[in-house]
């Protein structure tokens, strides 16, 4: 079997496991953790296409997540069927990206990061003032609440995001996006329309972040309206991508697994000290493995075999 066929078979198997998992799970807890896992994979991969592949460090992802959540929740609670409300959240997020993107993407490096952070902060304050209250599900929604349904919603959003981003970064567009990251001036010199590729990456990123926001709105029974605009939604996806491996497709997935699953296990087995341990692991990762967990085998391969080869060589000489 060719490597590509094996890869497709394994992807299919992973997907089948994910689809069938709720049938074998009795508790709500496992499903709620998996919902969070899928949410973080979507958010981090969406950040990665803009920050990792296009090199545009968006520190304001909460604005797009929040707009998706706000739009979806308002439409859904006012009678729009959820399958229509959630794409509307994604589209609203793209609209914000386009409005913000045209001026913001003219900024470079730190200025772009600060600009997007300002957008998130403005959105947080504005929503806090316009919607100072709490969003509750109605009695009807609570009575029909199904965590299994939420699980599948998050799964579909995640699979759609991963598929779209995988196909994009492995296409001609992906080359343009990466060229933009590597050297904007050089890319422009050879005719790459860097603004176009930045906008494409920004739009794809925002759409799936908006969908994830819609999933959040569908998942939570009650929360303050401003909550999905909180800055934690800006920084956690970045943290995850750096843990997993920035600018790689599997990095955000591995990072999310570590962040959600391992952190949960640590929280219950190690208690409050787990935060300290996780923080130390993050600092060590950044210091010694800047390519993240995904880059770990390569880093070890570079470090250890050299010694190993040296030793073997020395022994060979002795003989």
């Amino acid at each position: 079997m060719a490597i590509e066929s094996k890869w497709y078979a394994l992807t299919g198997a992973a997907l089948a496991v994910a689809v069938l998992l709720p049938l074998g799970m009795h508790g709500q807890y496992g499903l709620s953790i998996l919902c969070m896992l899928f949410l973080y994979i979507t958010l981090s991969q969406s950040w990665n296409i803009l920050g990792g592949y296009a090199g545009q460090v968006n520190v304001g992802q909460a604005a797009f997540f929040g707009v998706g959540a706000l739009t979806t929740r308002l439409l859904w609670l006012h009678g729009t069927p959820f399958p229509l409300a959630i794409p509307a959240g994604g589209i609203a997020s793209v609209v914000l990206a386009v409005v913000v993107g045209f001026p913001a993407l003219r900024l470079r490096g730190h200025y772009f990061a600060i600009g997007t952070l300002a957008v998130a902060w403005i959105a947080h304050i504005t929503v806090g003032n316009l919607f100072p209250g709490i969003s509750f599900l109605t009695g009807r929604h609570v009575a029909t609440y199904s965590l299994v349904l939420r699980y599948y919603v998050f799964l579909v959003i995640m699979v759609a995001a991963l598929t779209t981003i995988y196909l994009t970064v492995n296409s001609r567009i992906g080359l343009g996006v990466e060229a933009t990251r590597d050297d904007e001036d050089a890319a422009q010199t050879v005719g790459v329309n860097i603004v176009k590729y930045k906008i494409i990456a920004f739009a794809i990123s925002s759409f799936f972040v908006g969908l994830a926001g819609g999933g959040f709105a569908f998942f939570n029974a009650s929360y303050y309206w401003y909550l999905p605009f909180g800055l934690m939604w800006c920084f956690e996806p970045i943290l995850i991508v750096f843990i997993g491996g920035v600018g790689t497709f599997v990095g955000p997935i591995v990072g999310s697994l570590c962040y959600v699953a391992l952190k949960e296990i640590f929280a219950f087995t190690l208690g409050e000290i787990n935060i300290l341990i996780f923080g130390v692991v993050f600092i060590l990762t950044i210091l010694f493995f800047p390519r993240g967990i995904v880059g770990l085998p390569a880093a070890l391969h570079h470090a250890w075999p050299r010694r190993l080869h040296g030793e073997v060589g020395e022994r060979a000489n002795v003989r």
Partner: protein
Amino acid sequence: MTKKGFLISAVALLFATGLLLSHGPGGFAQSSPPKTIKVGGAVSLTGKYAAGGVDVADGYRIAVKHINDAGGIMVKEYGEKIPLELLLYDDESDPSKTVTRLEKLYSVDNVPVYLGEFASDMNIAGLGIAEKNKVPWIGVTMAVENAFNQGFRYTFAPCMFSFMEVGSMFDALDTISKDKRPIKIANFELQVDWGKECTKYVNKLAAERGYKVVLEQKYAPDTKDFSSLILAAKAAGADVLFSVPTPPQSMAIIKQMKELDYAPKATCFIRGPDLSNYWQVMGKDANYILTCGEWTPDMPYPGNKKLVDDYKAQHPGKLIGMQVGTAYGAVQILADSITRAGKLDREAIRNAIAATDLKTVRGRVTFDKRGIGNVPWSLCQWQNGKLEVVRNPDFKTTPVLLAPPWGQR
């Protein structure tokens, strides 16, 4: 890592995660009594709300210890006393984690009752989960009345809500003789639902009781500079200032009032000055400030002295926070409700909580149909380093002191 390698690890991790997390519920229908009754909640033991969360956890722990020292809770179904087992999971001050922790308590630990959190963000997330899972939830620090107007059946909060907090301020002001009583109110409205609710009641009660709201100014939760509001209140001649600031804001406002030489006769900040270390931080500038008085170590309610003595023995030198007492009271209600329900059935316990009529360390508690606690309306005032109760219907209180100008303090 190769794609193949990654996918194999992904499938394995997914299976492992599923296996780790997919414990089925045990069910309550047991013929033999359980060794313990598991109760618990998600509490902020770390993160930005940890200071209050730790107080809540301490209150829960002492209450459970006292109950277990007496043999546990009598459960009629089993004909014997069963000790409580307290499960407190750290939600790291993150509402998303509150949700997953409460799901674990529901489906893995099978708790018959949830205990509430310290901060509103987490409590609001908890309310929805409790209602969805049909698990009774007993809160500790709720103040937003609107949260209990949703028709929820399983949520109960033996706390002072906005109408009680505002009402207790007017009750305290009413105790001042008419010739000295300040009546011109400036209301700095915090732009959150709680602030809006308080404004509604300030306006309503002021009109009913002969006071006058001379200024109403709004501010955002992140506001740090209050000088324009203070100058407006000073210009309006307001001699009462009311607000529900965050703790840092409550300190900033007082400092800026002093700088701008604005000294209303009564300053009532429901939140902020209620922190046990407020005097340590603010010094004598905290004098005369009125604040929430849900519970203090001096309250002469049954069991309160034992709670305070044990707390001091366990935490020598540590100031005792208000939430220690309110959390202790929540566990008292829980224990009483399980005893009256006579079984560990969530619906039976829910009905027993709704019918609560209990004297706790914070006073007598009953609930209205919405789950809002009927608790004693209480207000405190900082007087020379001590938080004195100046309004409480159940015992003799200290008179309210009017604040002199800053130069005379």
